[in-house]
């Protein structure tokens, strides 16, 4: 009875047009949709606007591939070592523009989008150059008479989310910290969900309070095990710190990046082949079952 939204990762990413805006890396360093990002690189979808709070190295990888025209973010780099060298070089060489945000201002912009509002206030940013240089306006609130900042809504063309499991229809179980995932999914026009496992709808429906994204928000569902590597996914795998450090070491120059991207993206057939290359065990320990929950009718 329900629409089956399962397609391949390749098919899902093909729906994204050059020049569109994509929110991703929404749970901060958790559950970053690296597999989807790598498929964007493989397809060469360019002139993109990237949106997110803390992108860790996924934004840097997309910038290194020459696909990014604009970034709206609070922080872009490599959390394990600091700088993202491809991002730095592109910004310093005026190859891309950035709209600097704080985490709260990007969360507020996406929340306004989720709620269908043109803008929303914050008490943050006052006194900063983020405010001075950004798309913000100050106003005097009629209720408390104080100065606040109005953050214009951000409504991405796409949000890409990696999660633990989903039904074929696109109802998604996601656990662990979620950052601005609810805001970005609510604000986006279309949503691609990659998951470790596509499961029978009865699994999802057994726990409707665990559902973070529902079918009418979702354009495509892709089964993609290990799709967040090297970022961690609660219940599935730990963070691969060495991968971040190695990426940083190898991408200080564009030539280094070109070698890296060939080895880790272009020369790799699919995500399964990618996974086989990893030589470290990332399986979580102490992964006991969470306390029981029942509903009933």
């Amino acid at each position, binding site marked *: 009875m329900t629409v089956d939204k399962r397609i391949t990762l390749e098919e899902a990413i093909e729906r994204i047009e050059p020049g569109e805006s994509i929110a991703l890396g929404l*749970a*901060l*360093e*958790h559950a970053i949709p690296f597999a989807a990002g790598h498929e964007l690189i493989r397809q060469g979808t360019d002139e993109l606007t990237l949106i997110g*709070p*803390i992108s*860790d190295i996924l934004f840097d990888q997309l910038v290194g591939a020459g696909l990014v025209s604009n970034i709206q*973010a*609070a*922080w*872009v*780099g490599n*959390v*394990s*070592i*600091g*700088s*993202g060298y491809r*991002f*730095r070089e592109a*910004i*310093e060489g005026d190859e891309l523009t950035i709209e*600097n*945000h*704080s*985490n*709260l*201002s990007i*969360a507020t912009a996406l*929340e306004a989008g989720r709620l269908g509002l043109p803008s929303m206030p*914050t*008490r*943050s*940013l*006052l*006194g*900063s*150059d*983020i405010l001075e240089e950004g798309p913000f306006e100050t106003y005097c609130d009629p209720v408390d008479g104080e*100065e606040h900042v109005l953050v214009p809504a951000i409504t991405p063309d796409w949000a890409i989310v990696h999660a633990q499991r989903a039904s074929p229809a696109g109802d998604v179980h996601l*656990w*662990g*910290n*979620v*950052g*601005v*995932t*609810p*805001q970005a999914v609510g604000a986006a026009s279309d949503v691609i969900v990659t998951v470790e496992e596509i499961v029978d709808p009865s699994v999802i429906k057994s726990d409707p309070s665990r559902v973070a994204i529902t079918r009418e928000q979702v354009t495509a569902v892709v089964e993609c095990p290990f799709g967040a590597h090297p*970022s*961690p996914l*609660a219940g599935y795998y*730990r*963070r691969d*710190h060495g991968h*971040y450090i190695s990426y*940083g070491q190898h991408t200080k120059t564009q030539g280094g990046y070109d070698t890296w991207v060939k080895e880790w993206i272009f020369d790799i057939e699919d995500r399964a082949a990618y996974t086989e290359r990893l030589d470290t065990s990332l399986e*979580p320990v*102490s992964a006991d079952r969470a306390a029981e929950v029942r509903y009933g009718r």
Partner: protein
Amino acid sequence: MDADQSSATEGTEYTPQELMVAAAAREIYDGDTVFVGMRLPMLAYQLAVSTHAPNALALFESGVIRDDPAGTFIHTMCDLPNQFEAVATTDMLAVMGRLQRGDVDLGFLGTAEIDRFGNLNTTRVGPSDDPIRLPGSGGACDIACLAHETVVLMRHEPRRFVDQVTYVTSPGYPTDGSGADGRPSPGAGPRRLVTSKATFGFDDCGELYLRTVHPGVDPQSIHDDMPWELKTRETVDEEPVGQTAPPTPDELELIRTFDPEGFWTS
């Protein structure tokens, strides 16, 4: 953020980073709700909650809320050990709402540059025609604006103390000397700066002053590092500049449990 804060101080039994972690941990009071950022603050919270502040609660901008140390070493606040057996793993607005509402007692900040009034820059440095791009604010601007008080951690290098920061990522106090009352944001502003050589306070005008120097550091060298005439504790409360208490053996043992390979602290 820089990657290479790893120059251990010769001849002591702890690194400057370990001392910074211990000094930062002491700024957390028992019962505090603390907004914890990446790197050294993660260690400072873990140390404080394991020693003198067992009821300190940590909010992380990712949505994680914890009441105890992560069981094993973490690179990021989203590493599974920091989510595992957390008090809650929720979303950013759930924790940032508490920050904006005024419920956070203390927040931590790092910086590449600092001015006399505690304004911080993690966005871009260097001349405007040839800037060097840094990663940006993350949650730093929000913590600076909204936490009741903040503690700033910075590697001590003369070039980081500047008359005017290139970009105000995280506002401190107004440069007109009007102090906390002059801030447009609700938070009261920075309480401390902890560097790898000394600790500093901020006086009623919001101006930085030297409080303590770390063991083995010549106070005059701190003055020499500054592009302005640095105030000291004597001008604020007539107490002499003291010496920063080094980490105790128990503190060191804990820090090395949290960071066993010295990734952040060597």
